[in-house]
């Protein structure tokens, strides 16, 4: 019997307490705003009050007289250094500062630099801008009408407000499926505009040294290497060459996709530092964060399902109008304009599908970021899970029965979807059964029937989602041409302790702990003897960063494989030390043993010491290596969530009675960390389903641009989560892990909304768009004569 991992080793599967916590609980974390450099100045934006207007004149003379103000930068100055526009990660261009006109409310118009943040704010108030208002386009459908004003007049070839039309699937086969169908449903939904809103907003401190030409950029970055490359591409001519530019992403206070794009603030802090020869800090306020950086979703979708009368799915047709705002600044892999939205066949064996997405410019803040989501999988999961419930209702079939009938079966994996994905592994029937057993589904349905007789409202919602994460294979996945692969370096020191560095960047996920656990498992070195560093482009190997649940699938795999490379060399050293041939050495019980001679063994620490003091003749000194991982496929986490809620039929107020989440993320590295991520993701899903939407009036005024009216749930509203697991390892990942951070945010909104609609379905309610608020429910109840 071989030894398995132990608490002391802290390998895979152990609920190791986090290394990160010691500094955070003592106020010793170092976030971007905590950097105070000698001579540092502060930058702040003048922002547009209008959603669409010509900038006729900017008068900076009064601002320049404000005590402490050092500079006011406008598009004119940026043209002088060829930095007025920058590329977005989606291949569009974005004005760094409004160039001739503004395209959304709160757009950056001028950047004031001063000795203190208070003086910078004084300077902002003193800048006078003369605007001439232009017609505003807010509705994305109206934006597509032939007579709509064209917003992007800066782009010569832009003849409409359409950014792209993208389609995938087989139109003819889908048409045939709908023609043959016994039942067809059509469901219109809006996945509303929401915001990642991490607790730490975006910001940076840029320190350009005019003597050496080196630039240090402390930055809220989920992708430090990619950002350094972008800086070099955009501002190389202004001195930000890649070998002299160092991006440092220190502790990051949550990201959720908000910290993937490059924002004007980063560029302007760099410009200010170069111009003034002093470090410049820019930290956005919360209102600026919600109003100008990195919104998510805003998909208006019509979903149609075709099925036999017995409930066997035949075809799926999806048409989406995607509101991207003023600049196409989403952050999808280059070859995937609508991201991984074509995962929308979900957990079901659907023979034919036709999916179309039209992306549109409007006078709203730019974005479309992957908010706790692997590139539009959240939108995809939502529409299919909502449509499955609608179809079940049409068929008068229990929604679990319809799902069971159409799930991809465990024996079908690897499963090729009709839209071109190859699901790696899964057991959807099992995950759903575990969830239904945990919640006591059959009893709940009986209770619901009885309550309905009494006029009481109770809803049960199911969501059986399939995620698609770990982008990705370089043949298909790149951002601005950069392969979506990640590097890892591992150094084993002479005394047997380890320093490892990766190209990804934790924003709370706990890599310092979980990646150390992977190495502990592979090398037999206790995790407490392993330090993991990320976020400094001068020291860490290249990688595309942490978003889209890609760290464990890509960098986690690189970590395991780098450790195995270490073990290959270590084995040779062990053979030398044990005076045996390499073929006679085996890795067993976390050490090298001579086969059949249990007492004759060397630990990794002993081998490491020899690597520096007594390596075999002819072998290089030392024990270190690196590995760049190009995944052969994506990974496909899945699960079933069940929500039970009660609604007050007189007021529309509701209470989430229970929520059971059964997740399958393959091999679990640290169950404590996995559960923590699921708690957090479910809470964000709850917020989206019941509270959050960034809304605009007809003039393009943002109606809820602060935490006063863009609501985050507190501990009081947040439901108590009940978690369960199944474990179906990924067959192609070195340790079988799939990634988990986003599953709860992807899977849960549909479970909530399905429960709300279920509670009201006997009144003829077929859809309620998110956020489902008591006010919305009350209005429906009034309309139906109930309240």
């Amino acid at each position: 019997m071989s030894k398995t991992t132990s608490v002391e080793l802290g390998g895979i599967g152990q609920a190791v307490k986090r290394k990160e916590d010691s500094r955070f609980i003592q106020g010793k974390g170092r976030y971007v705003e905590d950097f105070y450099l000698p001579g540092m100045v502060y930058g702040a934006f003048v922002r547009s009050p209008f959603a669409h207007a010509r900038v006729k004149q900017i008068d900076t003379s009064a601002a320049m007289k404000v005590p402490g103000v050092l500079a006011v930068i406008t598009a004119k100055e940026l043209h002088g250094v060829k930095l007025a526009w920058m590329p977005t990660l989606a291949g569009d261009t974005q004005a760094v500062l409004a160039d001739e006109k503004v395209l959304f409310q709160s757009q950056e118009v001028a950047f004031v630099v001063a000795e203190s943040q208070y003086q910078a704010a004084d300077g902002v108030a003193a800048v006078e801008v003369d605007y001439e208002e232009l017609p505003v386009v807010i509705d994305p459908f109206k934006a597509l009408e032939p007579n709509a004003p064209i917003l992007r007049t800066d782009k010569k070839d832009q003849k409409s407000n359409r950014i792209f039309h993208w389609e995938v699937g087989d139109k003819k086969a889908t048409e045939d499926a709908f023609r043959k169908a016994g039942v067809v449903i059509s469901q219109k939904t809006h996945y509303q505009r929401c915001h990642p809103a991490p607790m730490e907003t975006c910001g940076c401190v840029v320190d350009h040294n005019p003597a050496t030409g080196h630039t240090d950029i402390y930055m809220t970055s989920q992708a430090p290497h990619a950002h350094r490359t972008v800086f070099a591409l955009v501002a190389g001519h202004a001195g930000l060459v890649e070998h002299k530019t160092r991006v440092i992403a220190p502790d990051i206070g949550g990201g959720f996709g908000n910290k993937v794009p490059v924002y004007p603030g980063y560029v302007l802090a760099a410009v200010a530092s170069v111009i003034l020869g002093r470090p410049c800090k820019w930290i956005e306020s919360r209102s600026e964060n919600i109003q100008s950086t990195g919104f998510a979703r805003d998909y208006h979708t019509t979903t149609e399902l075709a099925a036999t009368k017995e409930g066997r799915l035949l075809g799926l047709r999806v048409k989406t109008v995607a509101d991207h705002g003023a600049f196409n600044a989403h952050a999808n892999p280059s070859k995937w304009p609508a991201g991984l939205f074509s995962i929308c066949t979900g957990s079901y064996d659907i023979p034919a599908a036709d999916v179309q997405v039209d992306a549109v410019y409007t006078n709203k803040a730019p974005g479309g970021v992957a908010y706790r989501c692997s590139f539009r999988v959240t939108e995809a999961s939502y529409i299919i899970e909502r449509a499955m419930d609608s179809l079940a209702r049409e068929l008068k079939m229990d929604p679990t029965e319809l799902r069971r009938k159409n799930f991809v079966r465990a024996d079908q994996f690897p499963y090729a979807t009709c839209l071109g994905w190859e699901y790696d592994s899964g057991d959807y029937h099992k995950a759903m059964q575990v969830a239904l057993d945990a919640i006591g589904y059959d009893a709940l349905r009986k209770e619901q029937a009885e309550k309905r007789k009494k006029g009481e409202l109770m809803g049960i919602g199911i969501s059986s989602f399939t995620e698609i994460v770990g982008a990705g294979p370089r043949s298909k996945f790149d951002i601005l041409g950069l392969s979506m692969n990640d590097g890892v370096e591992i150094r084993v020191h002479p005394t047997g302790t380890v320093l490892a560095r990766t190209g990804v960047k934790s924003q709370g996920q706990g890599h310092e702990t979980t990646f150390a656990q992977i190495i502990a498992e592979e090398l037999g070195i206790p995790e407490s003897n392993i330090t993991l560093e990320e976020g400094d482009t001068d020291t860490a190997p290249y990688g595309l960063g942490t978003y889209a649940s890609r760290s464990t699938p890509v960098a986690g795999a690189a970590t395991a494989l780098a450790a195995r490379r270490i073990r290959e060399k270590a084995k040779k050293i062990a053979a030398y030390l044990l005076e045996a041939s390499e073929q006679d050495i085996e890795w067993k019980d976390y050490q090298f043993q001579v086969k059949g001679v249990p007492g004759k063994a060397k630990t990794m620490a002993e081998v490491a010491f020899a690597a520096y003091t007594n390596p075999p003749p002819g072998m290089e000194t030392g024990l270190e290596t690196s590995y760049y991982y190009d995944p052969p496929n994506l990974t496909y986490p899945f699960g079933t969530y069940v929500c039970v809620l009660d609604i007050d039929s007189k007021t529309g107020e509701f209470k989430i009675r229970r929520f059971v989440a059964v997740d399958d993320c393959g091999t679990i590295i640290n169950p404590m960390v996995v559960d923590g991520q699921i708690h957090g993701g479910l809470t964000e899903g709850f917020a989206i389903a019941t509270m959050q939407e960034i809304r605009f009036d007809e003039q393009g005024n943002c109606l809820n641009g602060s935490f006063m009216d863009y609501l985050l749930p507190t501990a009081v509203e947040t439901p108590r989560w009940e978690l369960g697991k199944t474990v179906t390892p990924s067959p192609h990942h070195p340790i079988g892990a799939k990634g988990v951070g986003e599953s709860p945010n992807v899977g849960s909104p549909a479970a909530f909304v399905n429960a709300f609609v279920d509670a009201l379905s006997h009144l003829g309610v077929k859809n309620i768009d998110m956020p489902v608020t008591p006010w919305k429910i009350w209005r429906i109840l009034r309309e139906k004569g109930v309240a």
Partner: protein
Amino acid sequence: MSSHKVTVTINGQKRSAEVEARMLLVHFIRDYLRLTGTHVGCDTTSCGACTVLLEGQAVKSCTLFAVQAEGKTLQTVEGLAQGTALHPLQEGFKEHHGLQCGFCTPGMLMSAAGLLSRNPRPSEEEIRWGIAGNLCRCTGYQNIVKAVQFASDKMAKGG
């Protein structure tokens, strides 16, 4: 803008600085006293990342002027541990995974400290209401509640 000398006793130490009348307490603590554990997460007194104890009571330091703390006693997250001995709340947060990105944690700890000083044995519901002025985006609060219960239990046993 008038300027004022502000003297406070913070984490047991007397500290002074000359500040503008409009200087917010949180900026005084961070920018002048360089105690950067206290964070700023919003501009509307909503998130609680800036929570500190003023005369033993949890307050949002973004919504007080520094001059209002003149002559008063402050405690921030840096003052929770006694030497190398962690406060039971700090232990609880680590033990029960009550934090992920760590940004809300200092404010959450100080709110919980304020809660336990006025109600040493809170129920789950009372804990949830006690930290309702503090937003967390990562944890869903479930483990934070457990962490506060851990601290309450430990402190009741004299720990």
